[in-house]
């Protein structure tokens, strides 16, 4: 066992075993939405892996270079070295195009994963104390991801990205007072400059990724230190985390996700063409192409540039040009709002408690409404960035579409935001467990102004103490002690790791379930026989395979039974069963 002895040797020198033991036993909540951030992380890993390969072949220079290779329409043409090397990489380096396309797809997926992760954090209130720090880091990483996406997109020096860079330069120049200086300092002169591509390259492969790596480490470090938040449920309190351990279960699952992500990215990279710069041609000053769009995550800015009316004004003779508002102000407001949200919400609700139990999105209708409205706003902007493509596909005049989007971008967010707000309120106040069960009465109730609840909008944690029959059991296993939590409903939660003494076990259990009685037992009962479960599963399969009719009948009967029992979900069912027998004594 080489690994064993290697591990021992390391431990002898660094004393890693206590840390390792704790780390391997870290508990991850069993809910899919907690894996969205992992998607972003793994996309970033994929970006680094493929990106490093690309740097071996990419020549970040604006100097003239003659392309010679198998792409006939450019063979012998003089272009910038950056462009020529990108075409070479795509057409003449084996596997080069695959890696390049995979890299680009990974970038699109990276930002998409970040956005979904951010939405999850936002709607569940996971940014609340004590996790504001990680929220700030996360928002910073989003801005860096956008920046790195844009710089990477611009590196090949092709016609489409050159137009994008020119537009961005114009947006920066529109900033009052300092705009022209900022743009000139960044570009080392007027657009287009010779140092533009090398500087973009350094930013793309060194500066921003280095900061991203540092921030990701910090993000994860803080996550480990603070532990995961979790949705409310039986046995879950503000003082514990319930779920699967990192080793062995979660590590395999997470690794599977990483590999699946790679599979999807390589499938995309191999099968779907992205950014065919050889077709776009090299950037030339006086050339343009149509349609011209940036990647989707920048497109909201492009959409805003299209939709914002042609307003400019002068302050004391100085010009404030149109791109300032949709470009600089909108972007600034967006990110400042993201940064400030946790603090603004705390100011509004006056909630200074620590939260490790998450809200369900519906628990906070105002937050949900604002979030949905904001997302709608940005989606409309992204779609508006494609107004020329839409106009062509639908054969409608592009300016009609422009007017339509100008209205939609203002009206639609209000509508969706209000809708989300009322649905959340209806779900909150009514009995319905899901959208489908909402009744007219629920909606009517939601439309009425809030009956001022004494506790305010922000419900405090669900008190889960005092579940019937709950107790902590401790038992020794050889030299070490273990403990677990049980309740009458049959819920059993085992401590994630063994400890060395009874005192430690008692302390851990006290932390996780303050105030719950503890008993020492000889040992855990034998686990429920797996064979039973296997047999059940086999039986289930047989039934399923049996006949659609029978399956449908069973389904309906189960439905009816569920309705009779008024059970909403597995854990609500348990909760109800137990609360039914709740006796203060």
């Amino acid at each position, binding site marked *: 066992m080489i690994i064993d002895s290697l591990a021992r040797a390391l431990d002898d020198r660094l004393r890693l075993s206590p840390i390792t033991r704790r780390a391997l036993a870290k508990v991850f909540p069993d809910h899919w939405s907690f894996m969205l951030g992992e998607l972003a992380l793994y996309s970033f890993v994929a970006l680094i892996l493929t990106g490093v390969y690309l740097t071996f072949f990419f020549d970040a220079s604006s100097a003239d270079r003659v392309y010679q290779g198998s792409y006939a329409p450019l063979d012998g043409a003089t272009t910038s070295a950056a462009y020529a090397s990108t075409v070479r990489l795509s057409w003449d380096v084996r*596997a080069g195009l695959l890696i390049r396309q995979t890299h680009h797809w990974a970038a699109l997926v990276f930002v998409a994963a970040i956005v979904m992760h951010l939405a999850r954090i936002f709607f569940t209130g996971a940014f609340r104390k004590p996790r504001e720090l990680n929220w700030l880091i996360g928002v910073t990483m989003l801005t860096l991801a956008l920046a790195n996406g844009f710089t990477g997109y611009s590196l090949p020096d092709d016609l489409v990205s050159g137009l994008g860079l020119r537009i961005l330069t114009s947006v920066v120049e529109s900033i009052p007072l300092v705009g022209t200086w900022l743009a000139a300092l960044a570009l080392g002169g007027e657009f287009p400059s010779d140092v533009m591509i090398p500087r973009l390259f350094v930013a793309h492969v060194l500066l921003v990724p280095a900061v991203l790596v540092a921030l990701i480490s910090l993000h994860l470090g803080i996550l480990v230190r603070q532990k995961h938040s979790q949705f409310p449920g039986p046995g879950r309190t503000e003082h514990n985390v*319930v779920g699967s351990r990192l080793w062995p279960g979660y590590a395999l699952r997470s690794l599977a996700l990483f590999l699946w992500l790679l*599979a999807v990215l390589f499938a995309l990279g191999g*099968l779907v063409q992205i950014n065919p710069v050889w077709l776009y041609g090299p950037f030339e000053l006086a050339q343009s192409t149509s349609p011209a769009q940036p990647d989707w995550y920048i497109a909201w800015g492009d959409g805003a*540039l299209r939709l*914002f009316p042609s307003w400019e004004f002068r302050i004391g003779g100085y010009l404030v040009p149109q791109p300032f508002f949709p470009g600089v102000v909108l972007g600034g407001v967006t990110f400042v709002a993201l940064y400030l949200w946790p603090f603004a919400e705390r100011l509004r609700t006056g909630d200074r408690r620590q939260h490790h139990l998450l809200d369900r999105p519906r628990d906070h209708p105002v937050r949900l409404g604002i979030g949905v409205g904001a997302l709608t706003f940005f989606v409309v902007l992204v779609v508006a960035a494609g107004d*020329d493509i839409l106009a062509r596909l639908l054969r409608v005049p592009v300016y009609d579409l422009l007017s339509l989007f100008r209205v939609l971008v203002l009206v639609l967010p209000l509508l969706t935001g209000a809708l989300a707000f009322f649905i959340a309120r209806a779900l909150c106040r009514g009995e319905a467990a899901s959208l489908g069960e909402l009744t007219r009465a629920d909606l009517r109730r939601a439309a009425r102004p809030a009956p001022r609840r004494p506790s305010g909008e922000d419900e405090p944690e669900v008190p889960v103490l005092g579940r019937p029959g709950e107790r902590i059991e401790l038992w020794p296993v050889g030299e070490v002690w273990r403990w677990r939590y049980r309740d009458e409903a049959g819920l059993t939660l085992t401590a994630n790791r063994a400890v060395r003494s009874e005192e430690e076990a008692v302390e851990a*259990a006290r932390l996780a379930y303050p105030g719950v009685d503890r008993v020492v037992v000889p040992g855990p009962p034998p686990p429920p026989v797996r064979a039973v479960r296997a047999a059940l599963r086999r039986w289930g399969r047989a039934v399923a395979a049996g006949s659609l009719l029978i399956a449908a009948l069973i389904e309906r009967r189960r439905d009816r039974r569920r309705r009779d029992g008024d059970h909403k979900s597995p854990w609500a069912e348990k909760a109800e069963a137990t609360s039914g027998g709740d006796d203060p004594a």
Partner: protein
Amino acid sequence: MRGRTPSRAERAASRRIVGAFLVSAAGAVGFAVTYGLGGDTQWEGVCLAVAFAGLAVGLAVWSRRLIPTGGYVEEHEGFTPTPAEQAMTAAVFHEPDSPSRRWGLLAALGFALTALGAAALFPLRSLLPWDRQRPARALKDTPWGPGVRLVDGEGRPLRPADVPADTLVGVFPEGNLDIGDAPAFAVRLDPERFIRQPAGGHLGGLVVWSVLCTHAGCPVRIYLKGTGRVLCPCHQSSFDLLAGARPVAGPAARPLPGLPIEVGPDGFLRATDDFTSPPGAGFWSRP
């Protein structure tokens, strides 16, 4: 798992996992073979995808069928330290000989660090070489000026006859084809249709304008022949050339700058001055 006979379900899961890993290996071999045979982006991608998907499926089945999930709890210390603990830490900082008690020295240190930090910003100015023009001036100046001849994209000087009606010809200042704000275009219009005279004047209907959109600087190269309009492909601003290149739709707010031209003694077109206003997108100190 050792020491316990695996259940039938476990055996089935194991078989699936092994199968998935074998598929993965096949994908890997396929990738290597494809690469060796000369490479083909599609097959390489599919093979790699199969290789990774096989691993992913194998591990996923492994983790879901052979390893119990859930059912564990970890205690959470919380992040509210006791006041005593906080006081102890604070005390460390406020020990009698702690640097944090010497306010005067700290203020001087802060001053020195601020000065150093500010000084460290100065070299950033080198990002824009000192021999270059100041940015706002650079944006206003273009290579155009009295006597600069108009050339086409290949550097050939243009005569008036080289700009026929119904087409748009890209023009550059002679010798400066690479300057960002210089590109212009020439069109020949019917002077009788002018609603407003072009800012730079015209030579019997031959007019030259900057090609850079006044919105965000994209080349306005879509010429809708006959309507006398040009359209920017980036944000769909359109300009009416018959009305002095005034913006008529889209986000642009200012007309395209015109270029005053004449026919030189050699018969070629040449500028008589710079653009009538700075070309391209707007900026703070734009006149």
